[in-house]
């Protein structure tokens, strides 16, 4: 359980954040400059809030009222920075050992051999940071933070400086950590893709305030999230389970309480819980069930709201069983179909629009 309630002013910028989260991975999501990094710095003890309280798993790290302000080295909070910040004068092996050596033996719960194996660091041990690629550096930095046996791991945009292939690689490692070490992680990102894939609980930060927080699907379904995500990425998240795997066609069928969703194969086993992010621009609406159409996913839906009518574009919010879908259509289409709240429609989702990158394993 991570509890945060702080106010912090830093050179004209004011951060006011209140949230509490109980989840393996909590995502702090928001645009750059929204205050996400300041918030994780406050959790790590690198900046001091003006007022408030921060607690991790019931342990108070900061409490202005009772004068508690643990030094960063006493917080047992690991920190993976955007640009790794390895010690340039030390080998990877010595970088990994740095925090481990400073951890009292009875506090160590992370096994060095396992971390080296998990993050594939064996080959890098005798090298210096200057000789590593961006992805290798980030892996070493994650290992270094883990070996200090933290009680919470902060990751501040750990993928921001990496290319797409490295990103996918590190994401897979983060998933491994979550599943194997059961270490609570606060993951800072401005990428919906990363957040969907990793996070169970999302805290949306904007202009120094918490704009929304809660379970990923619930937060993503909020109409104001469409504005925040931007035109391209607006969408919703559907919590589902793998129902069937169709090896012959390379498809996976996901079942959720509004029906089924066919997506390209996910390498997942039947029964596994997954999250699929469906972007509003990948969803179309038909009044009657269309026939002779390539679209694999035709879902019975009910219009619940028409949102953000700026210019030619309207986001249509629909309920599909208990899930929410957004469809981004033209204002002309809304008029021609007579879309209004309460109307029963068919939501059409292209299977290929939901790829591996927009699915996370819960």
């Amino acid at each position, binding site marked *: 359980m991570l509890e945060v309630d702080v106010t912090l002013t830093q050179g004209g910028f004011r951060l006011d954040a209140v949230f509490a989260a109980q989840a393996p991975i909590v995502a702090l999501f928001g645009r750059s400059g929204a205050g996400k990094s300041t918030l994780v710095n406050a959790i790590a003890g690198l900046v001091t809030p003006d007022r408030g309280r921060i607690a991790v798993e019931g342990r108070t790290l900061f409490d202005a009222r009772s004068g508690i302000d643990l*030094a960063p080295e006493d917080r047992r909070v690991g920190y993976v920075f955007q640009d790794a*910040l390895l010690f340039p004068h030390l080998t990877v092996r010595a970088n990994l050992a*740095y925090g481990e050596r400073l951890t009292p033996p009875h506090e160590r719960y992370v096994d060095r051999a396992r971390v080296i194996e998990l993050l594939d660091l064996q080959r890098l041990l005798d090298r*210096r940071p200057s000789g590593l690629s961006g992805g290798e550096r980030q892996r070493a930095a994650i290992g270094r933070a883990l070996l200090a046996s933290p009680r919470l791991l902060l990751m501040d945009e750990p993928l921001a400086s990496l290319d797409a292939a490295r990103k996918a690689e590190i994401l897979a490692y983060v998933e491994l950590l979550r599943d194997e070490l059961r270490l609570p992680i606060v993951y800072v990102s401005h990428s919906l893709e990363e957040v969907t894939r990793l996070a169970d609980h999302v805290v949306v930060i904007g202009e120094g305030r918490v704009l929304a927080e809660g379970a990923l699907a619930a937060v993503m379904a909020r109409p104001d999230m469409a504005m925040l995500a931007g035109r391209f990425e607006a969408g919703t998240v559907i919590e589902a389970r793998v129902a069937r795997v169709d090896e012959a066609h390379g498809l996976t069928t996901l079942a959720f309480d509004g029906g089924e969703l066919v997506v390209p194969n996910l390498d997942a086993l039947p029964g596994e819980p997954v999250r699929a992010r469906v972007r509003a621009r990948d969803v179309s609406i038909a009044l009657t069930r269309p026939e002779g159409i390539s679209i694999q996913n035709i879902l019975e839906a009910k219009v619940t709201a028409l949102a953000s009518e700026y210019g030619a574009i309207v986001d249509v919010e629909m309920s599909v069983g208990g899930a929410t879908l957004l469809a981004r259509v033209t204002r002309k289409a809304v008029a021609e179909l007579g879309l209004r709240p309460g109307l029963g429609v068919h939501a059409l989702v292209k299977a290929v629009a939901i790829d591996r990158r927009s699915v996370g394993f819960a």
Partner: protein
Amino acid sequence: MMLSEEEFGVVALSLKVGLWAVAVSLPPAIAAAYVLARKRFAGKALLDAAIHLPLVLPPVVVGFLLLELFGRRGPIGALLEPLGIEFAFRWTGAALAAAIMGFPLMVRAIRLSIQAVDTRIELAARTLGASPLRVFLTVTLPLAWPGLVTGAILAFARALGEFGATITFVSNIPGETQTLPLAIYTFTQTPGYDAQVLRLSLLAVALSLVALALSEWLVRRTGATETAHA
């Protein structure tokens, strides 16, 4: 070139004075450099100016001030004498004069290299459980190593060449305070010792070159290990 016993004594004394000057001034120079590089406080400009004073004052004035403060009747000298620490007309005084004259050069070099250390790397070390002192010893100092070497060598070279403050403070006593420059000066004042002057001058050049080469080697050695695997 074989050294006479006398010449050898002069060189040995110069090296002793130079090494002691560097060894004694290094810790306070590191502290001053760190404070100037990292801290903000009232009077910082004043401290900065005070440290740089020996660089701009005539060395004779520095020597005179040292004599007033550390002489047997001076306020600090009188305080230290019962403890067995004497400076006036002793080689220790020559070392003190050399240390003070080299101090600004040392602080400057170390300060620049500390300023070049990314403070976020230090913060990363804090999150890994290191106290501020440990961060300083295991991260800041090693990363500032080239500046430390440069500063130490600069101060050492300055100590070898120190003349004005030394002769004013501890006079020119053969075997006690007569360092290389003082010996050269003495010979230039004595007719018929031109060859002696030349020999000692060549020695001074050689010592300075060795010091420079040593610093180059020390800095390169650490640089090399850092990029060896690149």
